[in-house]
């Protein structure tokens, strides 16, 4: 299985840009090492690539993402972003979560501007108002900038949270099951939006997901994780042309990728 990972890394190295994220031997354990949340993980994310991590619940996917975001420290190993160690939150990173996490006392546009307000102050946030408006227009929320989140649907709330992630112009996107709370129709639409945004900005993205089709649809590489303590058991390169479309989801190749990953997950679940 290490071989498979190595091959995948080499294969993507030929295709894509320089490494952005580099993880070596990253682990996380609790209770003085007695409970392991994450077995050693090695990972390279190359510039402009889209990767997905898929695995069963509680396998440590979210822990991995938190470590990469500099929110949780690793127990061992090193995390490098653009050549410098990640030892805390970094401004290059933009994050999205399963819940939109909009604050009900802020209007849509104030929610979008919140990262600027926190990092650079209220004056800087006011100065960026036009950019925030442009982002809201881009995701089809024109006219909703001054309403409160209570009046937004689930899909609109997640689109607002995309804008909040993009307002800081992050080069790296860490996505923790961003659309899993949405219904399937909205979710497909949002995934295509996400692809468009990533491609237009040449952003490097890592997606945590439970959905195999979603992972295949969006990713250049899908990393399959074992049950707890999680580690990568296979890196599956998805060789489908870009931009990906929802139509591709019915193609035989797509089905083959999905089947392969599902079998791999079942195998791990059975041996656990």
């Amino acid at each position, binding site marked *: 299985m290490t071989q498979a990972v190595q091959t995948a890394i080499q294969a993507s190295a030929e295709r894509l840009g320089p490494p952005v994220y580099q993880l070596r031997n990253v682990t996380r354990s609790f209770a003085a090492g007695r409970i392991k949340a994450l077995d050693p993980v090695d990972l390279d994310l190359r510039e402009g690539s889209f990767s997905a991590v898929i695995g069963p619940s509680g396998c440590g996917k979210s822990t991995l993402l*938190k470590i990469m*975001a*500099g*929110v949780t420290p690793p127990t061992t190993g090193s995390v490098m972003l653009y050549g410098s160690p990640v030892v*805390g*939150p970094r*401004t290059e*990173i933009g*994050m999205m*979560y*399963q*819940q939109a*996490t909009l*604050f*009900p*006392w802020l209007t849509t546009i104030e929610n979008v501007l*919140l*990262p600027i*307000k*926190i*990092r650079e102050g209220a004056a800087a946030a006011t100065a960026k108002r036009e950019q925030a408006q442009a982002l809201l227009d881009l995701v089809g929320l024109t006219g909703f900038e001054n309403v*409160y989140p*209570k009046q937004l649907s689930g899909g609109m709330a997640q689109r607002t949270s995309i804008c909040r992630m993009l307002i800081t112009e992050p080069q790296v996107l860490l996505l923790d099951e961003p659309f899993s709370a949405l219904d399937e129709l909205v979710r497909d639409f949002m995934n295509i939006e996400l692809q468009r945004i990533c491609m237009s900005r040449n952003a490097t993205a890592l997606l945590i997901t439970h959905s195999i089709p979603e992972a295949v649809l969006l990713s250049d590489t899908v990393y399959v994780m074992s049950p707890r303590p999680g580690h990568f058991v296979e890196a599956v390169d998805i060789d489908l042309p870009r931009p990906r479309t929802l139509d591709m989801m019915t193609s035989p190749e797509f089905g083959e990728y999905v089947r392969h990953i599902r079998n791999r997950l079942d195998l791990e679940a059975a041996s656990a």
Partner: protein
Amino acid sequence: MTMATERDLGRPVTVEPASFPETVWTEKVTIIDLIPRSVAMIGLLVIVLTLWWSVHHFQIVSRIILPSPQEVAADIIFVGKNLLSGGYMLAALWITTKEILFGFAIAIAIGFTLGVIVGETSFGERALLPYLVAIDTMPKVAFAPLFLAWLGFGIGSKVALAAFIATFPIVVGTAAGLHASDENARMMFKSLGATRWQTLFQMKIPTGLPHIFTGLKIGAVGVMAGAITAEFLGGGKGLGELIRVAASQLQTPRVFSLILYLSALGYLLFWLVVFAERRIVFWHRSTVAGIETRH
């Protein structure tokens, strides 16, 4: 073949024959649920007053102990006139109002500060909270003699007991409010590199406002109890003292009417808090005893 069931679908969707009885039915509604709120309230009042009147009329209990509704009504008007003409009762009402407002203000200041210390710092949670819980379980009116001994028979001792009683629910509300933020919100602020103050003021306190206002509402009720208890025990010139004097002279109609005016004062304070809550916590529907207040 034409069928009624074809409608706009362009193909038959049901199997013939389509002859069924109408199955329209209504949900059961009890008559009591159909009564408007105002009618229900007035109706209940009429029932209670009638019962009261009967007890008095048929002398089920001594008339000295229980005055008639008419006597109480007459006294309510008498007290009202005295208040409006700026008589000694107005002065008493003003003193009690001052005690309540000062007591509440002090309770908010101390309660909020302690609540933030308990909810935000591990020192507060580990060292301070156990003592606060211990004091909170005590019957706080038992401290009244102590406050009287320390602060004398003036307004100070009344303010102190009122504040003392109202502080604890505000501490609890604030501390609980600061823990109300969810994991995602905290992670988001952390990942943005927010400082502790930014997280506190821009996320934790706004998130906790509904809890804080719950504490304030309980405190607003407590502050009344504190002020009146202290007046009963320590004299002074407030409404509580008037009630005590009237009761000792067996002027029961006066006791009833003064209690009514006192309730109006408490009611006013309570709704002042609810009003503030609606303005400040506009995104959250405030409730009284679990029932939504109208927006």
